[in-house]
């Protein structure tokens, strides 16, 4: 049984409905609500402020053009991040030839291990996240930073929920190896 939607989810949907009706003031509210999560997601993927900014605009343009065709306004969040995912993948592949590596060896990444001093844990996590392969970085960003449930991540990435779970598991494992000093673990 699904729980009733929370107030912020209802408010998000209300803004989308008002936009679809054609209320121009609602579009300002839509920008205020979604520009930060969109930019954050773009930045995590692109790793570069200017590129993230450029991609955010590209995604926003596509979203505004497609908004009248969105059938279920409650699905705006996975729909928007789905556009972002496709847009980023297209741009990153074509323009920067960044490899979307699905077969990264966790052991090989151990060499990139980052000190996990308690005071620096947050920074280490940030650096570890930035060092992850694109697919793992993306799934962790959507799950932990944007708080998307598994079903919505499945919609965004257009992969089955089971694959989302396994990718999350793998991403956490890789991140742990990047954050925790492997030598300390070996000594135990």
């Amino acid at each position, binding site marked *: 049984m699904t729980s009733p939607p929370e107030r912020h989810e209802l408010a998000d949907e209300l803004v989308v409905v008002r936009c679809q*009706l054609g209320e*121009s003031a609602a579009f300002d509210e839509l920008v205020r609500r979604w520009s930060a999560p969109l930019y954050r997601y773009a930045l995590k993927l692109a790793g570069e402020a200017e590129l993230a900014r450029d991609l955010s605009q590209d995604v926003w343009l596509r979203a505004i053009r*497609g908004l*009248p065709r969105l059938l279920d306004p409650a699905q705006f969040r996975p729909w928007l991040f789905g556009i972002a995912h496709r847009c980023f993948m297209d741009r990153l592949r074509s323009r920067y030839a960044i490899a979307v590596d699905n077969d990264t060896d966790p052991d090989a990444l151990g060499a990139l291990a980052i000190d996990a001093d308690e005071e620096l844990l947050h920074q280490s996590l940030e650096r570890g996240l930035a060092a992850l392969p694109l697919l793992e970085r993306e799934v962790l960003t959507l799950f932990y930073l944007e708080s998307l449930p598994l079903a919505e991540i499945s919609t965004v990435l257009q992969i089955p929920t089971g694959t989302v779970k396994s990718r999350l598991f793998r991403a956490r494992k890789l991140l742990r190896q990047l954050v925790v000093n492997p030598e300390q673990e070996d000594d135990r």
Partner: protein
Amino acid sequence: MTDSSFVTLQQELQQLTTRTLSPSARYGHVALLLASALMCAVLASLLATETALPGRTQLAFAVLLVIGTSWLAYALWVLRSRHSLLANQRIVAGRMAVAFTSVFVAGALLLGAVTGRALFPVAAAFGGSLLVLACLALQQAHRRADALRARRSELERMIGAQS
């Protein structure tokens, strides 16, 4: 990202939204769609009724019909992919379509009655088909807007109940 640069990004997205949603471009393409559809109706009527015209004239009409159909397809593509209409804009576009096609049908019927030429009743028939399509589009637009308004009221009530 600093606060000021984030505010700039927000402003850029707002400007992008305003530019993208410009109603003039949308209604311009609606007008293009209607004009090309009515032009096609006239040309198709001419080809169907004026069989005594010279071959080269008929060929010229056929070429014009192809051009009109291309404009029609282009306007449809733009309205579908680049300038999709929001609910309120769909109602305005539907009303434009009903008004344009009604005037066309009335004009064709009037000219048919005055001149007695076969061209005009055929053009009125084509126009009548377009008028039916326009009425259906307007009805769908109202239905969609009503559904969205009902959902808006429901959401406002639910949010009010939670606060």
